[in-house]
């Protein structure tokens, strides 16, 4: 029975492949857990020494004296993120509305690839641009109107660079959300005599509010984690910034800048891993929340 054994062989191959693939799928699912746990174990030694609260609220960062206050870095991250969202969001909403509601298909055909390119530019190149253009602009043109002196390496520079980096992400999500709104709703509004803008204002924007929130959350989490570009233009001084022209020191930059030397000091290593863990947890929660909202929206309109 050659045929019989051949069939058995094929069925065996099928079930073997199924098991291997199931294993890899479960592995990909567990990856987040593995990353989280290993960061947690690495940072546990500093959590034994200090309470989480004292670490988060402490403002003094002197690793060689055993002082690990994350407060300036958390504030640095928040400043940069807030500035970038503040700049990016209005521009992105306007552009997305323009592209999805007003623009001629021909314009879309040109603009979409350009936004794709913007999305593809590596962070380090954004950093180069920041150093070449944004930093001098701030220190020479902008800052003198407001403060006595700024090197230009500031949370504002970081915010501007970051704003442009997160724009493609926001735009692409917003366009998808706007596209998901049924045409009938717009037609209904237009046939009542509303102008295009009124339709956008009262129908499109209102209907896509949850989606916009999800897009913002996703953008915030992206901004939180961005490292190199921000690191290159932010100044990296471990003090809480008092104005947008002050230097800041976001968490990712802290990790990136100090990795080389931390090995000599176990607690230092642990502190940086805690910084990574904080980033990881916040971003994980933000991401999961916004993705769940976005999938819900997709499903609701798909029906």
């Amino acid at each position, binding site marked *: 029975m050659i*045929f019989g054994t*051949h*069939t058995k062989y*094929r*069925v065996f191959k099928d079930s073997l492949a199924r098991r291997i693939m199931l294993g890899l799928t479960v592995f990909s699912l567990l990856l987040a857990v593995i990353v989280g746990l290993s960061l947690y174990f690495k940072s546990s030694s500093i959590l034994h020494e200090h309470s989480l609260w004292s670490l988060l609220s402490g403002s003094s960062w002197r690793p060689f004296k055993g002082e690990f206050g994350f407060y300036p870095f958390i504030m640095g991250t928040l400043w940069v993120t807030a500035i970038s969202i503040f700049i990016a969001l209005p521009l992105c909403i306007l552009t997305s509305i323009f592209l999805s509601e007003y623009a001629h298909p021909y314009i879309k055909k040109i603009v979409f690839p350009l936004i794709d390119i913007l999305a593809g530019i590596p962070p380090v190149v954004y950093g180069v641009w920041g150093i070449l253009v944004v930093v001098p602009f701030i220190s020479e043109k902008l800052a003198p109107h407001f403060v006595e002196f700024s090197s230009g390496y500031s949370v504002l520079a970081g915010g501007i660079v970051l704003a442009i980096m997160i724009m493609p992400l926001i735009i692409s999500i917003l366009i998808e959300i706007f596209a998901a709104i049924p045409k009938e709703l717009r037609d209904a509004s237009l046939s009542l005599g509303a102008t295009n803008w009124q339709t956008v204002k009262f129908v499109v924007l209102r209907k896509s509010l949850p989606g916009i929130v999800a897009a913002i959350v996703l953008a915030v989490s992206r901004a939180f984690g961005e490292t190199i570009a921000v690191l290159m233009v932010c100044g990296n001084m471990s003090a809480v910034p008092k104005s947008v022209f002050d230097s800041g020191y976001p968490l990712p930059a802290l990790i990136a800048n100090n990795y080389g030397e931390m090995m000599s000091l176990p607690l230092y290593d642990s502190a940086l891993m805690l910084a990574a863990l904080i980033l990881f947890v916040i971003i994980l929660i933000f991401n999961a929340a916004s993705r769940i909202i976005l999938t819900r929206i997709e499903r609701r309109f798909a029906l």
Partner: protein
Amino acid sequence: MNTRLLKSENIIASSMNNGKDVFLLEEGAEAQVRTLLLQKTKLDLTAPHISVKNLNVHLQKKHVLKDVNLDIPNKAITCIIGPSGCGKTTLLKTFNRLLEQSVDVKIDGHVFVDGEDIHDKNVEIINIRKKMGLLSQRPCPLPMSIFDNIAYGPRIHGNRNMKELSRLVENYLKAAGLWDEVKDRLHSPANRLSIGQQQRLCLARGLAVEPEIILGDEATSALDPISSKKIEELFVELKRDYSIILVTHTLRQARRIADYVVFMYLGEVIEAGSADEIFNNPQKELTREYISGAFS
């Protein structure tokens, strides 16, 4: 019936059965064979090819097939008719166990093919499927060349001999009446064919795994009239060697080619019988109304 004709018939029959011989019909004989075959087959229900016993199917908690009991005659065309949503396609997909690919399916009851319960634990699902060729509503060529489409089945079932494969491909393309149209471009992608040609390709592909049964799920509904006529003619020729089960909701098609008709309504088999009985003397009021076009 002259001897020449008989011989050609035998050649067709043998080639269909083992797929090894290349059959060549003499000029003029083909037409005669066709008229001969067009006569309705005598039904023999003492040894049904497929036998369904108390089949109940729930799809996502909905009861889509209710207590179906049915015998499908051997080597004849069975048409399953009924309004859309009555469970025709579900029944068809139960036969080759494709239904199990869907989500949340519960199947109770028995389906016997050649006396073997297809849901038995010891039955290998791929052997069940190999017994049945499926033609779906829209032709679905695999993303490969015409040749590879036909050879796909034999290949996965272990035939690697290139010479033999070429012969099989030619053989079954001929059986599906497609050979003359594609013989010069066997290695071009199958999706460049017209939709009617694609459907015949799918038929040839199904025949190439040497099934006993052909399942058609509204196999002509996406085709133009000429292509669908060709397919119908092919079915009529093929019933010499295969049991053919067609789901259709064009009554006229069933009238033209069916030997045996099953009428389904809301998941139940209302009536089943020879084409003559169902179309000319239905026993149930519902069947009568459907046949007369009171609803569709």
